[in-house]
């Protein structure tokens, strides 16, 4: 392989950090247990997890047993991972044939739901859409106030209920208003909840139920907000939230820190849930469509 090709292939990573040198030091080594252990360490440190890492390593072992680990190997592994993480709809959100399109947002406490909604609203607004927000977190202190501030900043309309009101009733009112105004998008915020809290998961199912009863085909997207600093628990979150509200994708937040968010590899392997967007800051513009290439490169950097 020409040196130039090689450079092209690793452009991202090479440019990014000198730490990639320790990856380069793998070149020319034999694929022995030590080598695989090192690879394992890298992936586990990025929160990919033991099981998902094992699956990847087994693929490498099969393909490269007793061969020399050249630049090919890493490219092979990265290509596998990129292919795995590819979103068939690549970054696009579903759109209902008639307004409104409803997006339901859920996730564990503090993962970044409300902020992600603000970012999503801004993004859709910038694309010329009218937006209505439904503040169905009636539990956490000042949750609706928080969303209201964001709504104002992005120029979106909002429906809220009283503190402690039934979230399903707020969802109901939000659907009514969305239908009456024929808005392009209704985005529904929900309270943070741990997936082990059965009664709260039922509550969420009820919200979804109301939405689908009020508006045909809705919610058109049910997005799970995962915190990139989370470890292996995110797998369980994805499983149980998916079961409960049939998630269609993931928003991976807080990728601007040092956490790699590698657990989404395991999430994809085990639940097939694709990442749609990533959050890279607290500002309203800090949302990007998920880019599997950049993401995989950063796992190894």
């Amino acid at each position, binding site marked *: 392989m020409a040196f130039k090709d090689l450079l092209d292939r690793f452009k991202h990573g090479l440019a990014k950090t000198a730490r990639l040198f320790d990856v380069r030091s793998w070149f020319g080594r034999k694929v022995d247990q030590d080598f695989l252990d090192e690879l394992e360490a890298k992936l586990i440190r990025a929160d990919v997890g033991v099981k998902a890492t094992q699956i990847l390593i087994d693929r490498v072992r099969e393909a490269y047993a007793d061969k020399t680990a050249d630049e090919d190997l890493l490219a092979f592994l990265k290509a596998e991972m990129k292919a795995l993480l590819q979103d068939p709809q690549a970054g696009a959100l579903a759109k209902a044939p008639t307004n409104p399109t409803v997006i339901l947002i859920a996730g564990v406490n503090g993962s970044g739901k409300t902020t992600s909604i603000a970012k999503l609203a801004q993004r859709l607004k910038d694309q010329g859409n009218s937006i209505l927000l439904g503040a169905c977190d009636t539990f956490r202190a000042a949750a609706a106030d*928080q969303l209201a*501030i964001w709504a104002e900043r992005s120029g979106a309309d909002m429906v809220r209920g009283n503190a402690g009101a039934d979230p399903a009733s707020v969802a109901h009112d939000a659907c009514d208003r969305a239908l009456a105004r024929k808005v392009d998008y209704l985005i529904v915020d929900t309270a943070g909840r741990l997936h082990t809290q059965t009664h709260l998961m039922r509550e969420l199912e009820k919200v979804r139920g109301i939405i689908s009863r009020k508006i045909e085909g809705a919610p058109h997207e049910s997005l799970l907000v995962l915190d990139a600093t989370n470890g292996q628990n995110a797998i369980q979150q994805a499983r149980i939230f998916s079961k409960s509200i049939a998630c269609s994708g993931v928003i991976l937040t*807080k990728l601007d820190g040092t956490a790699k968010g590698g657990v989404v590899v395991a999430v994809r392997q085990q639940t097939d849930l694709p990442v749609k967007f990533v959050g890279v800051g607290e500002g309203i513009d800090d949302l990007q469509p998920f880019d599997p290439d950049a993401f995989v490169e950063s796992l190894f950097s």
Partner: protein
Amino acid sequence: MFDDIQHRLSDALGRFKVRGKLTEANMQEGLRAVRTALLEADVNYEVVQRFMKRVTEKAAGQALIKSVRPDQQIVKIVHDELIELMGEGDPHIRFEKAGPTVIMLCGLQGSGKTTTCGKLARRMLGLGRKPLMVAADLQRPAAIEQLKVLGQQLDIPVHAEDPEGTDPVEVCRRGVSQAEKLGRDTVILDTAGRLHVDDELMDQLKKIEKKVRPHQVYFVCDALTGQDAVASAGAFNAALELDGVIMTKLDGDARGGAALSVRQVTGVPIKFVGMGEKLERLDPFDPQRIVGQMLGMGDIVGLVEAAKDAVDEEEARRQQERMAKGKFDLDDFRKQIVTMKKMGSVKDLMGKIPGMNQMGSMLEGVDADAEVKRIQGIIDSMTPEERRDPHKIDISRRRRIAAGAGVEPQDVSGLVKQFDAMAAMVKSMSQMSMMDRVRMLSGLGKAGAFNPGALLKTPKQGTGKRLTPKERERQKRLREKEARRIQKEMREKRKGGPNP
């Protein structure tokens, strides 16, 4: 206890004939299982590597203890070592003699600082202190409002300023003087969430520390955190010299390995754990419990949590007294079934009990919830007298009850018989601590003896044929034997010393 890891270890060691002594070679597979468990619990990779080295050195050369299996012995070593590394829980807060004691909370975005601020303040109230909270997060939309709401709920003052034209350092400083003026003796500073790599915001924290001189600085850490915990906790510790850590969101099924990472990288004690969103859900840190969780019995905690939510305290106390007196009857049992239903479906519950997981597959083809309903139906068809004293139920009563509930007469006698076994156990449980009960529950989960679920009809086998009465009898004997063994263990444990 240690069901998950125990299971894996016995698997790993089963393939070996470990004789005489534990050696690095014969433990290798077993230790690999331990390593996997810790990594899956999100303990940091480097921390795990170091830990494994330590444990291997400690275990190698140890003679095998005759009365326990090698896997149990290894788990014991691992467990003790983890407990030691986790350090003691230390829920005490040192209060200053003169002037208000100032506590600062810091951490990453969304870790639970503001909520924990309210929880700590509530705890202060309980200690007879007079807290004041300071809203020093001028960044996040409605952060001030959030803290104000918590202040109202607790009926304690909150110092807040209009974010325009002020900065967090000033807010904190004026908050402390405000406390002095109002005669408040404890000040809790709620700071904005920030990334440890955000130099500007980390400098701001350092500035607060320099200018306001908080007496205690606590790092609020999300228990769901993965490998990155060492990086963030390390950076906050380097910037601020932390005095303690508070782990939040431990009420779910997170294995909480971050606790060990954070403890290792900062060296400061974990003081409290957040066990829910409500302000009363702050517990002193218990190393025993978190180690158990890390090794894979975390779901039990979730189960207890679910039980807490569903159980009517008053009723629970009443039942407890009745159990202690040996008066627990089918009426009480029926109430427990109703409570259990509130906690979720039987399948959900089973999933939460280690050891019961495996029962999940046994339950294939059986609608567990319908079965529980059936049991309830049987009890409902009894007269109050029969419920108080099931032994009164003779053949003709049995027929009547069966007809009323739409089941076979032998289903009625089966329920009565198993109720007997359970009542005895329930009695001994009423004298145990909560933790012992949980342990017992998990042990029995395997045996399927304590839980209305245990009374379920034996599931159909793959052939669609029901178990023969003989097979059923055998299964029941096994269950009862396991129950007796655990009871005995518990008794011995109680004799051996005070409850943990």
